[in-house]
């Protein structure tokens, strides 16, 4: 077949031929075609199957409102389900497949559903499939799930990239039909920053599909000339293939630009699509209108489409949908289709006009006061049955039928802030209501202004009003035909089904049943019948459904009301909403100063928030992670180990009130801390729960350096700013984060001082730099550095910091100069082992649910001063003397394994919640002790030290006898760290 239905004219490039395939068969088309126009040009009307009854379907539209002609576009990892053939731009090599059918589009086994449709009435599934109970998941639902759904999804990663971007303008014009073009021209000539966005690949809107003139040119030529002028204006940005998907708060609009969807694959480095966030001063919705069909029996056959779509295919794409065409209309617009098709040489065999009187086109048979009541042609329209004004029926052989039931303004974006459209009886359609998005004006057909003249005028007026301009350009002359329409929603006749929502197979019978069962509110109607819930979101069918409900209930259409539209305007690929944030780029990485060194060593890294930290560094011959970690722990405790602790939050706190400020922030006192010393601090939330902990050093009279946990660095800083600005605004306190400014290393172990003495320029003997000392020093001959004598491991330990750029070098220098002490670098696992051995709380214990009392730190909360959380920490629920207490745990059998998250039970107690004693918060293997150890929160744990209990992990069927011990499991007297 070679474009048997191609006729003259149109805005396609006939000098180039594009090859494509549909369901494996080869076809040809031209640049400017959509997949639908090209298939229709090749005489293919059947393009899909409906959702429930698997009825054969062809396109009913020539735009994004299409419910029927959905295909799987492309293959392999780029396979896209549910692509509307009516907007898919043709490219050379395009491959498309029909979907939701088996084994083929023409012979679909599930077509049986259509025969059985009486059993599948609206909501039938709510009334059955209940017995026996277990059959739902096992039998009924799997069958339903397999049968449901439309297109299929690839399991492969989407190979294309997506971008995001941000644009700013005085005026966003949505839609580049006559109203939008005029608005953009008005604002553009006035020098305003304008963005004109249109979902189509060619601007002009309906002007491209019509034969009217604008000024002295055809509409399409006027549009092209206007676009050309706009393109010369530097203050105007023209965006084709760009769908404005939603109106969000305060003039922000989302838009998706399909950069590469018209290409076989995106160019290298280029995105498939871009999500634009557009910041606007004002916006004009000029999105046009969508025609609606008329419901009658078997109104869904391939070849039956919207009258305006028939016209568009002929005028814009040079395609006749059929050889013998009829039009069924209730308004003058249907006559236009007949006129245009006739002018194109298409055989228009009849105009069925439901109105009793009206214009008669010469050379065309008019049946006035008549209605189409049925059709034939399973895979494509063959004939229509017309009931004439006199009641007689006539069968007319046609292979295409245009339906014109009137036009619905595309109010969608205007209702994104939940503004309800209002019914305009003059055009028998809903128009934008009150309280739309602030700053959004509506022009043209979207506002119910249906003539070309009205579109141009309201476009101009809207731009003038939006931007408070004094004057706009002259209006070109254009047709200003009045709307002549007599409402006809639904032809009541016979026992067959009239489709309302074609994709979801909602028919007039379903609406009747909904009424009968009292699902009469529009929301109930929608939810019970699934009306308007298909991929087209009811753009063509909704109004008909509620008009029928209005009829059935005897209410008016305004009384019946309408559901509202929500974003997105048309469905949006999830990829573009995610942009670049996927795969490894889902979130940025944070790398420590020792990262490059560690990578050289073959370190294993672990994600800690966005940081990558060294987890352990395997040495040759180590095959199990535990071997590496045990070695790192033992080497540290034996001699000296170094750990990169840069990730801990560091906040510089200065000002004459810095000390007093910290007294409010921390549960314990800091104003009394001498200069040159540091102290462990416990920070509560206002609700009395522990928020964070860390050491804070006083570096000067009015200068402190706070340390936070890695996880809470950002939230603590935010909290400090809240306290400083909102609670105590008169305090003289200044804050800045220095987390990344300093590379900080923990140096721990009996030889820590000896190693540091090799690099530190000053005397750091125990006398000169005692436990909990802090100060500015220099290293390696004068480099500024900070030293803190603090320990998380229980060893003699320091944290030393240098400007980040020197971190790598300091580490290498320490390893080199201290080589005689066999220093090792340890990772977060060894760090965790040593802190658990020492009973220090960390992530597992700082869980946002625990108090200082739970942690055994109750005495740190000073009641002599006001601090955040002090008062509410005293509530009865938080001071229960039999509440959770931090304990140490060791297995009675040293070979037994413990698991963090296991729960405590008394010996002999049944594993039920009433006996739940608490849980293990952290567990490690202590190479020093030679067995697993753990920390846990145990009810009244402080009274149970020395007792034997069980811990159970019911997920793994483990039940282990343990001894409750002090959490300070290593060097409880602290002799080593003071050494």
């Amino acid at each position, binding site marked *: 077949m070679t474009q048997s239905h191609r006729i003259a004219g149109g805005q396609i490039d006939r000098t180039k031929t594009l090859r494509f395939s549909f369901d494996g068969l080869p076809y040809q088309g031209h640049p400017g075609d959509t997949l639908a126009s090209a298939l229709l040009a090749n005489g293919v009307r059947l393009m899909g199957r409906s959702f429930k009854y698997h009825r054969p379907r062809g396109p009913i539209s020539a735009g994004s409102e299409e419910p029927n002609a959905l295909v799987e576009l492309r293959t392999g990892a780029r396979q896209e389900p549910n692509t509307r053939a009516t907007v898919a731009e043709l490219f050379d090599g395009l491959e498309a497949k029909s979907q939701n059918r088996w084994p083929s589009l023409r012979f679909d086994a599930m077509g049986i559903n259509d025969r059985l449709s009486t059993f599948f009435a609206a909501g039938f599934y*709510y009334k059955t499939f209940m017995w026996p109970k277990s059959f*739902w998941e096992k039998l009924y639902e799997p069958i339903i799930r397999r049968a449901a759904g439309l297109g299929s999804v690839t399991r492969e990663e989407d190979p294309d990239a997506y971008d995001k971007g941000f644009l700013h303008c005085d005026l966003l014009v949505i839609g580049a039909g006559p109203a939008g073009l005029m608005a953009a021209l008005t604002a553009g000539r006035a020098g305003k920053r304008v963005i004109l966005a249109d979902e189509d690949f060619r601007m002009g809107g309906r002007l491209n599909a019509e034969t009217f003139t604008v000024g002295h040119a055809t509409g399409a030529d006027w549009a092209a000339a206007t676009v050309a002028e706009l393109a010369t204006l530097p203050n105007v940005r023209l965006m084709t293939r760009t769908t404005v998907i939603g109106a969000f708060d305060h003039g922000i609009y989302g838009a998706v630009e399909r950069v590469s969807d018209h290409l076989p694959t995106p160019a290298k480095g280029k995105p498939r699509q871009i999500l634009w966030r557009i910041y606007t001063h004002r916006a004009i919705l000029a999105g046009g209108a969508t025609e609606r069909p008329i419901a009658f029996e078997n109104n869904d056959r391939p070849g039956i489409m919207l009258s305006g779509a028939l016209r568009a295919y002929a005028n814009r794409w040079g395609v006749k949908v059929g050889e013998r065409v009829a039009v069924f209309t209730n308004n003058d617009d249907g006559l236009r289709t007949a006129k245009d098709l006739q002018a194109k040489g298409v055989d228009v065999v009849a105009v069925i006009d439901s109105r009793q009187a009206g214009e008669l086109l010469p050379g065309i048979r008019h049946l006035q006061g008549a209605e189409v009541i049925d059709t034939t042609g399973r895979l494509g329209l063959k004939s229509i049955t017309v009931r004439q004004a006199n009641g007689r029926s006539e069968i007319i052989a046609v292979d295409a039928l245009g339906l014109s039931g009137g036009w619905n303004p595309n109010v969608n974006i205007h209702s994104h802030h939940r503004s309800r459209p209002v019914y305009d009886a003059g055009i028998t359609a809903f128009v934008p209501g009150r309280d739309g998005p602030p700053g959004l004006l509506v022009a043209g057909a979207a506002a119910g202004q249906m003539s070309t003249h009205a579109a141009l005028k309201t476009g101009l007026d809207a731009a003038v009003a939006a931007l408070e301009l004094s004057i706009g350009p002259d209006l070109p002359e254009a047709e200003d035909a009045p709307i002549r329409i007599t409402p006809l929603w639904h032809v009541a006749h016979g026992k067959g089904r009239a489709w309302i929502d074609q994709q979801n197979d909602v028919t007039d*019978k379903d609406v009747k049943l909904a009424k009968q069962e009292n699902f009469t509110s529009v929301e109930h109607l929608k939810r*019970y019948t699934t009306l308007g819930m298909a991929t087209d979101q009811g753009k063509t069918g909704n109004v008909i459904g509620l008009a029928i409900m209005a009829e059935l209930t005897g209410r008016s259409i305004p009384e019946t009301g309408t559901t509202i539209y929500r974003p997105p305007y048309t469905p949006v690929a999830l990829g573009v909403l995610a942009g670049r944030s996927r795969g490894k780029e889902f979130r940025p990485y944070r790398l420590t100063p020792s990262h490059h060194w560690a990578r050289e060593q073959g370190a294993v890294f672990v994600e800690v928030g966005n940081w990558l930290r060294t987890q352990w560094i395997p040495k040759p011959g180590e095959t199990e992670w535990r071997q590496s970690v045990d070695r790192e722990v033992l080497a540290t405790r034996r001699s000296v180990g170094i750990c990169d602790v840069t990730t801990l939050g560091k906040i510089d706190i200065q000002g004459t009130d810095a000390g007093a400020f910290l007294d409010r922030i921390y549960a314990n006192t800091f104003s009394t801390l001498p200069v040159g010393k540091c102290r462990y601090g416990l920070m509560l939330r206002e*609700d009395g729960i522990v*928020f964070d902990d860390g050491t804070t050093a006083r570096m000067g009279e009015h200068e402190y350096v706070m340390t936070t946990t890695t996880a809470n660095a950002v939230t603590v800083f935010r909290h400090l700013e809240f306290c400083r600005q909102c609670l105590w605004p008169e305090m003289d306190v200044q804050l800045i984060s220095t987390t990344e400014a300093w590379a900080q290393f923990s140096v721990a172990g009996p030889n820590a001082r000896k190693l540091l003495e090799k690099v530190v320029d000053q005397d750091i003997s125990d006398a000169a730099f005692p436990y909990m000392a802090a100060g500015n020093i220099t290293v390696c001959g004068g480099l500024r550095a900070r030293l803190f004598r603090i320990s998380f491991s229980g060893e003699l330990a320091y944290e030393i910091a240098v400007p980040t750029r020197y971190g790598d070098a300091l580490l290498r220098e320490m390893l080199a100069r201290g080589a005689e002490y066999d220093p090792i670098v340890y990772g977060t696992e060894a760090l965790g082992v040593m802190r658990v051995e020492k009973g220090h709380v960390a992530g597992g214990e700082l869980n946002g649910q625990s108090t200082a009392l739970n942690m055994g730190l109750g005495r740190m909360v000073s009641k002599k001063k006001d601090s955040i959380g002090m008062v509410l920490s005293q509530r009865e629920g938080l001071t229960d003397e039999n509440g959770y207490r931090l304990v140490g745990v060791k297995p009675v059998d040293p070979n037994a394994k413990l698991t963090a998250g296991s729960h405590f039970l008394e010996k002999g107690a049944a594993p039920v*919640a009433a006996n*739940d004693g608490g849980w293990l918060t952290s567990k490690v293997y202590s190479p020093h002790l030679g067995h697993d150890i753990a920390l846990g929160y145990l009810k009244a744990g402080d009274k149970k030290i020395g007792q034997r209990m069980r811990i159970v992990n019911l997920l793994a069927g483990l039940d282990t006898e343990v001894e409750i011990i002090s959490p300070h499991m290593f060097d409880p007297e602290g002799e080593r760290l003071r050494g």
Partner: protein
Amino acid sequence: MRYSGFRVIAEALTGHKGWKPVWRDPDPKPDYDYIIIGGGGHGLATAYYLAKEFGQARIAVLEKGYLGGGNVGRNTTIIRSNYLLDGNEPFYEFSLKLWEGLEQDFNYNAMVSQRGIINLIHTDAQRDAATRRGNAMILHGADARLLSRDEVRQMYPWLNFDNARFPIKGALMQPRGGTVRHDAVAWGYARGADQRGVDLIQNCEVTGMRIENGRIKGVETTRGYIGAKKVGVAVAGSSSKVMAHAGMRLPIESHVLQAFVSEGLKPLIDGVMTFGAGHFYVSQSDKGGLVFGGDIDGYNSYAQRGNLPVIEDVAEGGMALMPAIGRVRLLRTWGGIMDMSMDGSPIIDKTHIEGLYFNGGWCYGGFKATPASGWCFAHLLAKDESHITARAYRFDRFLKGLMIDEKGQGATPNLH
């Protein structure tokens, strides 16, 4: 009228002429023994159980819009009882058990489908927390399994296992978790309540409460004054507005939660899944749409609509976890108002006003709670004492320091 497969066939063969209205549209009576404010899932369930389980009569449900128009009509349909804390787990497990017999109980197919829920684990700390949680669930009589990375991979081989920023390390699974056809829950309860004589009164907004000497007498509505011995408020999302009629301030903020559905697809995801390294959870409906959501927008709102940043954040989570869905299209977004409480857990309690009872603070977990919430609220209304599984849901828990804070976020509602 009883529903059954036979009935469906019989009606189909006789032109569906015999189907009766699922509920009446009665005018309000001058007074009732019980008024339930709110014709959403919780309110309807409360009325249903009051009538059915507690033998009460003279009950009305007052709904300002249409039945089932609250959050039961806009959610992501997940049921589960994978809670951690003693205050919560018995309640949600009770709820799950009620789900399991619900359809037979109210003779309506709500498509309760226990296809399982998995919470993905990406760090060792998350595994520890999942172990604690899974054990707590089992101790409370629920079901839980800890899945290894390989087990997850067997279930969903096309998740991002090889190029992930935060690799999947396993999952906590509750096989009995799943989804339910949400609207059908409201309709099933409404039908069951109506059949038991409950007056379901739509388009009837409560505009005031008549309180005399510390006791509720009735409510003012857009359809006139209606007297009542007891009034139960179940209007999550609007709790502060309604309770303001009684002069009460609540430990609750209203926030918007957006949810999303994709175009219909052939089966891709069998159960329910939550991403542990971002804000994303997803299931696939029987119709084929991916139903998913993420975090709340984060600011107080009654607008029932949200903004782009959260839509993007959710999509990022989705793409990070499931890189194959890049070309799947988002069809529709919507926004519901959440009663975000100060510890992330609900309140089912008496108030200081005699005869006035409150049910709210469901955050975004109210759907799964619907049966137990209704049952426990009915219990409280009928017996004036808390149901055993809802004893912790008291107003005074904040004063006493007995918060039920699953996430450990403290009194910051938008973080729960």
